[in-house]
């Protein structure tokens, strides 16, 4: 008999188990309907490069005080002791300052990469990190197209550091420390939808002042931080060739194939196994080839 009772139960067990495990691996969309993400709009025409936000950020997160401006490299990166930097670029339209920090993507690659959900896109918009869940694999760093998560390589109890949009302040209705304190109103905090509207209005009102591009509206599937600027964003060191689709979309195809593989492959294997059962009888005679 091809499939006896015993084998049937084996198959049943394998399939049942895999369905139970396989179901979990379906990628989940992070943007729940009816949720309004908050974000910040950075207007590079207004930023004077005072770096006050760097100090406010360090203060709000308990980081060491940022270095003085004198002799400072014009272009820096954030690291495990600093969540934001103001970079200075000499452009076709003079000196332009741009603030860099975590972009708080609508569908963050880091959160999709995280196997413990330590990286999490909150309903308000900030992407936050939970030390009780994180196992320090750094897959978020590999995946993030903006290289935002930073890791404490020199600690026995290392944390992932990145901008959390001052989530604790947001929860009590306060804007992030940087946006709250910016003396030039270069940083505007609000609902992402309103920010895009405001950005478009500023561009329309002053088309000669801005390039017609809201950075972050579509980049990487849309980000919480949005930028408008007087020069193309390539001149400001922003990643230029990012895809418009979200980064988690890149692994969706693979993850969606998992449940079907788990159902089809065992059945196929069992079928082959049953049909080749008696092959060895003839194999004795034909050695080699």
């Amino acid at each position, binding site marked *: 008999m091809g499939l006896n009772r015993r084998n049937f139960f084996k198959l049943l067990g394998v399939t049942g188990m*895999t369905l139970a495990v396989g179901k979990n691996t379906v990628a989940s969309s992070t943007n729940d309907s009816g949720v309004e993400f908050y974000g910040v709009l950075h207007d590079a025409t207004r930023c004077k490069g005072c770096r006050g936000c760097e100090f406010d950020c360090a203060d709000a997160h308990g980081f060491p005080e940022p270095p003085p401006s004198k002799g400072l490299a014009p272009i820096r990166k954030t690291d495990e002791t600093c969540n934001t930097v103001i970079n200075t670029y000499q452009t076709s339209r003079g000196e332009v300052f741009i603030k860099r920090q975590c972009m708080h993507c609508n569908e963050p*690659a880091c959160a999709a990469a995280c196997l413990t*959900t330590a990286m999490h896109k909150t309903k308000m918009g900030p992407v936050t990190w939970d030390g009780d869940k994180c196992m320090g694999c750094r897959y978020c760093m590999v*995946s993030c197209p903006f290289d935002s998560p930073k890791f404490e390589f020199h600690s*026995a109890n290392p944390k992932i550091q990145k901008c959390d949009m001052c989530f604790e302040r947001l929860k009590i209705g306060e804007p992030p420390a940087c946006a709250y304190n910016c003396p030039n109103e270069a940083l505007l905090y609000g609902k992402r939808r309103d920010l895009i509207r405001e950005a478009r209005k500023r561009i329309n009102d002053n088309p000669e002042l801005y390039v017609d591009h809201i950075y972050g509206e579509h980049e990487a599937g849309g980000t919480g931080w949005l930028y408008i600027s007087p020069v193309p964003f390539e001149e400001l060191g922003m990643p230029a060739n990012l895809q418009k689709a979200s980064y988690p979309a890149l692994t969706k195809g693979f993850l969606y194939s998992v449940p079907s593989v788990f159902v089809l*492959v065992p059945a196929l*294997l069992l079928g082959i*196994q049953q049909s*080749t059962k008696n092959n060895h009888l003839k194999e004795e005679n034909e050695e080699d080839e």
Partner: protein
Amino acid sequence: MNNSYQIAADHDGKSIWKFLVSEFKPKGKFLTPFNIISIPIMILGLALIVIRFWKGIGSITNLTQDIPWGLWIGFDVVTGVAFAGGAYVLTFMVYILNMRKYHSIVRVTVLNGFLAYVFYAGALLLDLGRPWNVINPIIGNSFGTSSVLFLVAWHFLLYMIAQLIEFSPAIAEWLGARRARKILSAMTIAAVIFGITLSTLHQSGLGALYLMARDKIHPLWYSEFIPIMFFVSSIFAGLSMVIFEGSISHKVFFNQISEKNHQAQHGIIRGLSKICAGAMFAYFFLQMLVFIHGQNWIWINTPMGYWWLLEMVGFVFLPMLLFFVSYRKNNINMIKVAAILTMLGVILNRLNVTVIGFRWDMAIRYIPSWMELVVTLAVIFTEIWIFRWVINRMPVLRDSPSWVSEK
């Protein structure tokens, strides 16, 4: 032959603890060249691991904020698991396709695969910044189900269990547990089917890990087909490892292998070389397809392009040809050369995706520190020690005790 190796069955299970204690003592000569080289490296590696947990990962590695994964992931885990692919390919051939010819090497291959997973997943623990949370994705208080790494982690765990079940009859034979052996070997087919399914998914899953690093990996190595490439190449990576490991085992553990199996070895290696040639042809064809489809020729006349050509021609096409020719000419030594070339090619490929081609445009490149290298070597040596310990005690290479076939 049997008198130099104790089998617990001789004791009828009465003094099992005595037997176990005696088995834990080393056997044979102690001051062999391998021991003299491996022991200092293992001790040094252990010291470095202590420093790593005390002072942080940055204290002994050259990892940076831009290169968060280095040699320990790129070589130990990603390459090591590819080489462990022989286990699923061979169990597929023997238990699913019923190619009995290869039955004599299944146990040693599964043992090899099992130890590879245990040690390379172990190496993963060294690379985790917060290893005490490693249990989180398993026990279910935080399932990151949209993560490829979540899938890979679960698969590692489940596949280790499947391989342990596949290997367990050998342990039962060693302990003389006849009833247990009967139960365990009845589970083999289920474990094999489950194990092959897991392998298809996590061999490709290791490639899928890098899908989101779209802008960081050199276009010659990045495509949406990385998962398929990783899967197909794991077939010949695993089989080359089987050929390589088999030819060493046949020298080192010469007196354990029966005359019959010694003679069968020739035909086995020859058969494997044919399969390798076929799999490598499929792989090469896929690579060419991706190359043309992605219009990647614009990269060929660059240093990275030459590097890619070297990998494709020197370490895929050439060994593929060698496998094929030496299969036709029945030249075992040439097959071994082809296997070694193939293995170098797989190492090259995995490192190109994970380390060399990762952030290839950075001014400061990542080069692993000597300490990362020592820890890697220490992991490999420890694995070989355990492998040798098992081979010398359990019926892996040597035939099962007589009571098995009596029934």
